[in-house]
């Protein structure tokens, strides 16, 4: 279980998270949503022990994560822009992560490479955005973390790959009993693959509860999200009307 207790975090004087508290259950996938700049990625970085919260704490099965080598060894965060070594191939990245991640599973790595049809010897620099995302997904699952944090996991993936990934995530949780937090703006894909949803709005937690409750009240996750967002659509109307004047 991942317990987030009253976490506050800011960047150089600007508050990003303000007293966020919720828990992600073991053997379940928790969705984390919010508008652009809401602080989702920052929260995941706090959860994986990269950022130290200014207030509150994050507990992984009861233990604080920051500077906790044992708990961090069981955590993997797939960021939007996962770091790849300069000029590295997928094989080189395997060597890199296998040395740092104690639960690394070569068999899973090999099977996923085959399933995604990615060559181990091919340079990642030559990959498309979607392929880079697939490479990240391969590395994340091969790390076999107990606590998996996936930031914008569907970003860049085509429809087929999004569905494959969603299924893969469900299988992974079922097989390993892992705790997963996923963020995405692709709410349609997210809705079908999560058990619980947490939403951050204006640096604070706006909602946390079962995804079924959202469906019950709002029909879909998208409806709920749009209902929460206050967008002045009139402000966007006619912005190109007198553009060049010629």
């Amino acid at each position, binding site marked *: 279980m991942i317990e987030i207790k009253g976490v506050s975090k800011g960047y150089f004087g600007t508050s990003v998270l303000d007293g966020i508290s919720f828990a992600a259950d073991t053997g379940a996938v928790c969705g984390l949503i919010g508008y652009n700049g809401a602080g989702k990625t920052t929260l995941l970085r706090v959860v994986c022990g990269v*950022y130290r919260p200014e207030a509150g704490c994050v507990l992984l099965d009861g233990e604080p994560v920051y500077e906790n080598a044992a708990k961090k060894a069981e955590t993997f965060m797939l960021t939007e822009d996962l770091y790849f070594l300069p000029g590295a191939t997928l094989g080189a990245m395997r060597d890199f992560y296998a040395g740092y991640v*104690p639960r690394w599973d070569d068999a899973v790595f090999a099977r996923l490479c085959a399933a995604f049809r990615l060559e181990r010897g091919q340079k990642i620099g030559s990959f498309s955005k979607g392929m880079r995302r697939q490479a990240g997904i391969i590395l994340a699952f091969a790390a076999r973390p107990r606590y998996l944090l996936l930031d914008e996991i569907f970003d860049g993936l085509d429809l087929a790959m999004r569905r494959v990934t969603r299924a893969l995530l469900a299988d992974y949780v079922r097989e390993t009993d892992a705790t997963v937090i996923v963020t995405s703006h692709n709410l349609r894909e997210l809705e079908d693959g999560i058990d619980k949803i947490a939403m951050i709005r204006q640096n604070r937690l706006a909602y946390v509860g079962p995804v079924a409750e959202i469906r019950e009240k709002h029909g879909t996750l998208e409806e709920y999200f749009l209902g929460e967002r206050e967008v002045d659509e009139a402000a966007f109307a006619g912005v190109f009307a007198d553009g060049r004047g010629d």
Partner: protein
Amino acid sequence: MFRHDMKRCLREGLPLAAAGFFVLLVLIPFGTAAVPGDSIFEVAVTHEQMKYRLIADGFVPAVQGFSVLLGFLLGFAMFRFVLDPGRSQTFFSFGMPRGALYRNRFAAGALLLFLAVFLPLAAALVLNLAALGGYPGLAAAWLYLAFGLFATALASFCCAMLGCLLAGTAPESLFFGASLLALPYAVSYAAGIFLKHLLWGNPYGVSPYLGPGPLAPSASALAAPFDPVLFFYNDLAKYRMFYRPLETDTPDPVNPAIVFLWAAAIIVLAVLGLHLMRGRKAEQAGFSWKSPAALHVCAFGPSLFAGAFVFGLAAAVSLWFGCALGAAVYAGCLWLARRTAAGGKPAAGQGGGIASSPAWQPLFAKNAAGVVVPVALALALAAGAVIGYGAYASLPDAADVKQVSVSYVGSPNTLGAPAYGSSADTSYYDSALYSYSDSDEIAAAIELHARFAADGRRPLAGQDVFAETAVPYDVRFAYTMKDGKTKTWYYDRASFAQLRALLETEKTQTAFLARDYALGGGLYAADPALGASADAVAGAAPGAGNGNADGGLVWAREAYLGGAVYLTDPTFREMFSIGLSGEDRAGLLAAIRADEAALSFEERYFPQGEPLGILMFTQAGEDDLAAWSYHLNNAFVFVGEGHAKTLAFLKERDLWLEKYTAGAARADEIERVIMQDYDPYIGMNAPAFPQSPYFMAYLSGRPDAFRIIKDFGKADEARDPAAIEQIAKELRSNYYLTEPGCLVCVQYKGSDKWVYKFWPGEHDAAQHEME
């Protein structure tokens, strides 16, 4: 995981370390053993006196500089991962504590540096053993060099590492690292500039115009043990080789204190680095200037350096102008740093690294404090520079002084001390010290010194009052106190009035004895009151023992005792060689000494007329006849009415021929004269090097070879017999030029030579010019 991380760190630093290794391989073993014509394998180089040479002569700065550079680059390479958001997040998310990440990188960098430095030195050691064999002290020197260079590189590594841990981006980290590395030098440089301009007369870092320098170590030299770049440089130069001198067969033993000191400092820096790594905010990666406190600390050095540099330039014009401009530049640089750090807002105290440390925050938390602290630091430095190093503002009490050595400003013809000299056809300058031990002379010397201290630093420029014009000059007052301590003041300029006052020391007993000694006598050596030994050698001269001896020779004495003797008159038209037996020379010198002893101060330096004849004692043979001008190997006696014994001696032996000494004031034989006001600052090219104010006439084949060779503009020429007659009566062949006057170039009828003399007094040269 830890082993994997260590391997990765080694792999990451290996290319740079390997490149460094190969460069050092070229600079160290190749430089000492494989350069044709300068190899330890060549006897022509070793002369069988070179016992070992681990680093060749010209390679020392390069080895030192490259070790610093290699350490810095490797430190940056090892820790730059914290500057990249992706990399830092990846590494910080692994199951390794930050301390372990830090230790691996530090250890890997240190190991690579160790190998890059030790292996080339080991190769040099093997080559030395092969070429020159083993020698006592070689192993110790090798070990000392190896650890010293390693410590140098590691100190630089630490600075780069701290730069990375304080910064958010690569350029910022390079700025921080380089600033930390250069901070001690910047501070000592500024201290040196303050010393030079604010503490008139201190000798620190000052090199005189003539003689070895500096007189006392510079602020940078004093601070070198605390400078990460320079702390080992002197020892590197000293212990890299041993060329056996005649007096000893073993090299100086190694004193590793400085390396131990820096090993301790490196440990402190490493612990500081660990603290910064643990406290580093990962979100700082990719964001510049988010550590304002670090920026202030690092900006202090460059700002201080810039301010001091500008102050030094401007203070040469005006001290107050220099202070204002230097302070403005310093404040401007700090303001820029502060503005950069805060993004235009006073956001100090935020960000990571040192800024987050509670110890620093009170200093930088408020806008006012951020200004006050650097200003206070600069003022403290300036105050420390002024009152540091001893109280140079107050002169010693005469009662405490055992001896004082004062710069000699009189005639080189009677300079009775070893000296450093510089001479050309038209000018000369000698630098020597006379030491005074008599209480009255000491008191007089302190009085003279007080005048220099009170007058302050004067601009090197022309003045309305001629005597107040300052010119470049070496003026030293070196005190030996009764408790054995020594203290030296140095002034790099003097006004003509000050030089005239210094000339008064010629009236002292010490100067009298020195004159006698220069003229071949032995009074100085024989005077038991002065405590000198009986042998009349150079070592017994008044200036000996001041560290001022140039080979220990008293130049004038050498000329008098061994030089050929010539006689001419003030027209320099005919010269007569005087052959002297040893007995005759002794007799002549005895007569000159007796006459000189009887001459008044004014007769020697401010004669009322031309001499009857001029005797030249020269060791340069007939070459001197062409110019009849002073240089270190000759000396002159301007024989006047006061030299009765000299005249009698020469006439008695038929050596004073009237035809050679009859042209003293024959104005009717002058074809024309060319006059120029004597002012060093007329026209272009102000003097940058001293000249003696003691003028001696000379010959030239050119009409424009005035004593001060420069563009005076138009010279005034007179051909009118009446004007020439008036001028000729007042010309001087020898005179002490501290009052206004004209330099005069005279051409005699039937001669293509020009004779240069001095015309004392204020004159309107133009009124004598022929229409």
